[in-house]
């Protein structure tokens, strides 16, 4: 058969897999899975042309192919290098790769502000994971970190340019998913920054997806800003009929409040495909406007890796013991039961964080307590 795709045998960290010709080393390694898959900060499968910028996915090619078994002279970016038959790749088994990756992480962190306690991305940040795996606790950088003038990206998207690692993912998204590009990287070198190019607000229906592709906290959801930490919210798969997009999303809830809506992501942090094989981008309406549980059909809790902080204190199939007070007290209300909402100011049912458009301020909470008293 002529149209049959040729299968190449690749050995990655002593594990052999068969992949079709034209697959990149990164994708082949992801097929093996686990620690063998190199980390990627800029490469993003649904985005054409992404990759090759961050250098975190560097691997050593110990043998080029069966026909030419010479090793490649330098470490190669696995997201942009295709496999050859009989290729031998070393990722975590190579000390050269580990050293290089540690160096890359150190470079990425040179200008990163490390304001994780404030950043809304903390807990699902790829740079956090990467520096936890490959970084050093200290820094050797002695100079001032780069700063930028604050730039307003409209009511939905919050830009923190200081956190940006210039992966270009959002630029590719703006190019490929939305019809009109109003978004790009300006200037060069240390001064390069993501900008909307001559103060055009981002009004495209799908521009919200740049939040999901951002590996760090440079682009975050303004409607979710500071409302809760990611790991205290509960991810739930849900869908709705949307005329613009697939409508398949993950809701991040606190109780029954929907604090945030994102696309569904796979184990590599990339947007999942829907059943028809298309990338599950979602529109701005689904992402920013539908913040009520009644807007959505809930499918069930999202599967979260057990090692992720997001899975902390979340129990699937938990057996909740039956309320025994009624049976024991013969229907009488207990005299000494303390209602926590009468005492506590936190998670007050009268303050609905999901309906306020931006971050809460001191006023949000003070006006509430005066009405409830």
């Amino acid at each position, binding site marked *: 058969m002529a149209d049959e795709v040729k299968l190449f045998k690749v050995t990655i960290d002593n594990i052999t897999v068969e992949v079709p010709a034209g697959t990149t080393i990164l994708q082949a390694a992801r097929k093996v899975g686990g620690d063998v898959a190199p980390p990627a900060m800029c490469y993003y499968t649904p985005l054409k042309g992404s990759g090759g910028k961050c250098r975190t996915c560097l691997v050593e090619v110990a043998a080029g192919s069966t026909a030419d078994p010479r090793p490649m002279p330098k470490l190669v970016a696995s997201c942009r290098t295709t496999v050859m038959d009989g290729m031998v790749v070393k990722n975590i088994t190579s000390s050269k790769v580990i050293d290089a990756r540690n160096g890359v992480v150190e470079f990425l962190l040179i200008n990163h502000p490390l304001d994780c306690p*404030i950043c809304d991305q903390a807990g699902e940040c790829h740079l956090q994971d990467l520096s936890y795996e490959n970084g050093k606790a200290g820094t050797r950088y002695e100079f001032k970190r780069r700063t930028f003038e604050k730039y307003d990206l409209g009511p939905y998207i919050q830009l923190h340019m200081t956190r940006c690692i210039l992966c270009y993912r959002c630029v590719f998204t703006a190019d490929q998913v939305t019809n009109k590009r109003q978004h790009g990287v300006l200037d060069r070198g240390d001064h390069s920054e993501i900008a909307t190019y001559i103060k055009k607000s981002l009004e495209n229906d799908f521009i919200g997806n740049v939040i999901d592709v951002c590996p760090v906290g440079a682009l975050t959801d303004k409607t979710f800003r500071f409302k809760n930490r990611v790991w205290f919210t509960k991810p739930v798969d849900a869908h709705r009929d949307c005329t613009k997009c697939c409508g398949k999303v993950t809701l991040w809830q606190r109780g029954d409040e929907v604090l945030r809506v994102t696309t569904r992501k796979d184990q590599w942090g990339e947007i999942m495909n829907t059943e028809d094989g298309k990338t599950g981008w979602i529109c701005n309406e689904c992402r920013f406007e539908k913040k009520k549980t009644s807007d959505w059909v809930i499918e069930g809790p999202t599967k979260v890796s057990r090692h992720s902080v997001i899975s902390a*204190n979340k129990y699937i199939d938990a057996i909740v013991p039956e309320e025994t007070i009624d049976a024991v007290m013969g229907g009488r209300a207990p005299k000494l039961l303390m209602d926590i909402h009468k005492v*506590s100011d936190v998670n007050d049912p009268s303050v609905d964080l999901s309906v306020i458009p931006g971050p809460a301020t001191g006023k949000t909470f003070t006006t509430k307590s005066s009405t409830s008293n």
Partner: protein
Amino acid sequence: MTWLESIYLWNIGKGMLITIKHFFKKKATIQYPEQKRTFSQVFRGLHVLNRDEEGRERCTACGLCAVACPAEAITMEAAERQKGEENLYREEKYAAKYEINMLRCIFCGYCEEACPKDAIYLSQTFAPANYGRQGFIYKKDDLLIPDPVKDPEGYKKALGERAKA
């Protein structure tokens, strides 16, 4: 048993001798609350929320104490610092509400370990007794250390004996 033995005089005397001996021993008790025992250097008591040198709250409501807390005693709600509040809060986000349920707290000190901003510390006092459970929900006002600029004496007192000079 002889008559002399049956009145137990000798045994009573022996018992009294033990009692009298204890009069001259060092007492095991102290006159609390006038007197207080010195705590161990690693004693973990009530929490305080720290301020920086300028009196701004250090806590940014990052939630690491709450996620580290094995008893799930800590809850908080964050707010964004507005223009004009820079003298109150150190960072752009702050804890608008911060509560520790002292009924749940087991004083393990994990919150102190987790805090990236040096904001929460366990002090050398323990939670005072209370008649109702309501009194054990400690809010931000109860936990915040006195302002070192406005109330240096109260701040110094709150730092305790362990504070480095």
